[in-house]
């Protein structure tokens, strides 16, 4: 099973302040450890929201585009890892090993990625087909 571990933003990540060299080194070592254990599928850091945008829909109207930055720093995502592990506990175990700054808060959110079988019996063939059709549309860039 796969999990996405999301790193939440804070004032520093939003201000584009780079972590200390010490933390960067520790993070590098952590990533190496994830690779060596064979569990890391992908991982990226995200730039501050001022370099991004939001595309919003309201009541079926045409989408509007809102440029960053966005105010609510703690609700934003600053980076992610995708881990392939055996259990949620294992994903949490890896998340717990992530190096953290000596001061201030750091929040990692561990979220399981949907596999088709997770829908179980609730997904009739028809539902699955339409979900697949939807996915194939979104994947055709």
């Amino acid at each position, binding site marked *: 099973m796969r999990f996405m571990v999301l790193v939440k933003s804070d004032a520093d990540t939003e201000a584009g302040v780079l972590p200390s060299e010490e933390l960067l080194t520790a993070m590098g070592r952590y990533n190496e450890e994830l*690779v*060596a*254990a*064979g*569990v890391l*599928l*992908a991982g990226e850091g995200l730039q501050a929201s001022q370099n991004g945008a939001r595309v919003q829909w309201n009541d079926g109207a045409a989408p509007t585009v809102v440029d960053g930055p966005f105010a609510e720093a703690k609700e934003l995502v600053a980076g992610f890892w*995708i881990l*392939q*592990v*055996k*259990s*949620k*506990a*294992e994903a*949490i*175990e*890896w998340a717990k090993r992530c190096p953290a700054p000596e001061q201030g808060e750091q929040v990692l959110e561990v979220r399981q990625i949907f*596999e*088709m*079988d997770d829908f179980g019996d609730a*997904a*009739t*063939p028809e539902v*699955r*087909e339409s979900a*697949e059709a939807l*996915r*194939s549309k979104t*994947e*055709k860039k």
Partner: protein
Amino acid sequence: MTASDPRPAIDAVWRTESARLIAGLARFLHDVGLAEEFAQDALVAALEQWPETGIPRNPGAWLTTIAKRRAIDHLRRRERFAANLVELGRNQGVDGVGTAPDAASEQLDSDDIQDDLLRLVFVSCHPVLSTDARVALTLRLLGGLTTEEIARGFLVPESTVAQRIVRAKRTLTKAGVPFEVPAPADRPARIASVLSVIYLIFNEGYAATSGEDWMRPALCEEALRLGRVLAGLLPEDAEVHGLVALMEIQASRMRARTSPTGDPVLLLDQNRARWDRLLINRGLAALERSEALAHPRGPYAMQAAIAACHARARTAEETDWIRIAALYQALALQTPSPVVELNRAVALSMAFGPAVGLELVDTLTGEPSLAAHHLLPSLRGDLLRRLGRDSEAATEFARAATLTKNARERALLAERAAACEAAAHRMQRTGAAAEPSAMDLDSAARRPVTG
């Protein structure tokens, strides 16, 4: 919310720590079986204490400390025992460990852990062990899987797996297999043994097309993980990257291989939007690494290159069959096998028409290694059908149906036999031509090419 049941968390710690723990212990005990025993002791201690004390900040170090203590006690006892024997003047038969407990303790703290893991990989896949034993030991010592999980994955009783592991450890001890990385001269053969064990685990999971048991797809994931670990341990080995590439690309098709009703979907009929682009990209990257390290490609890299041809084609029609046929030809030169020839026949038929494929298939009908296999008649049936020889095709499909062990595959083949039969009758009445059909390329392509 805090987790109330510590068991899943302890399992997770075990999963992430056990291989390194066992590998570290095995270095100074010179005995993989004993190492696993002491590691298990530490796990038992954790299970007793952690629910009370909570999980320590550094659980790996905690487990190491406990296991190390047990191991050192064991060495002291053995030394005392040896000393007593010396006093009695009959020390000939005693195998001295030759490492003082304190030195051993230091060794375990050193950061040679990558080397230890590599040694553990080679010992688990040692040629003195039977294939079954290699698989069980690898999953147990490197995967941290329980006996029950291994048994579920391989659809055998738990007692069978337990026995295999016990016997494997005994065999290693009896044969005096050293805990070391093999000498350079032996390395290619030993690496080949490791790769074949990992690919066997992968195929065991991949062959189960339906999700009847969660453990079988989990075997694919575990094989992939072991492959990625090995790629980190042997970064200069082209074939390790080749195997990883092959597994990543094959695993990318996992979601598309079964219909919503659980029936197998053939490669050319698969909805390519369901292929996992992340795994495909990882596979293509691994293949690039492999190709940068060795020319010509080894057998795994060659199969990965073939899998990559499919992965790169946006639609089934875009598949570069000429290139695939050429790759199979190169593979056949490297590792001649009737199964490779069968795959080449498929590629040739797609590139140059069914008659060309059939020509090659017909040279294989006498192959004893294919006699009991459904692949040959099912492919022959397919080519005959595309040539409009429906009545002969029906006979081949019916024969294939009797040979397969997979119930779903049998139903599919029987269905085709009936369809060909019907078409043959129609043909007699109206003279209408047969429709072309796809074939089971995917299952043909994933068979191991050696042995």
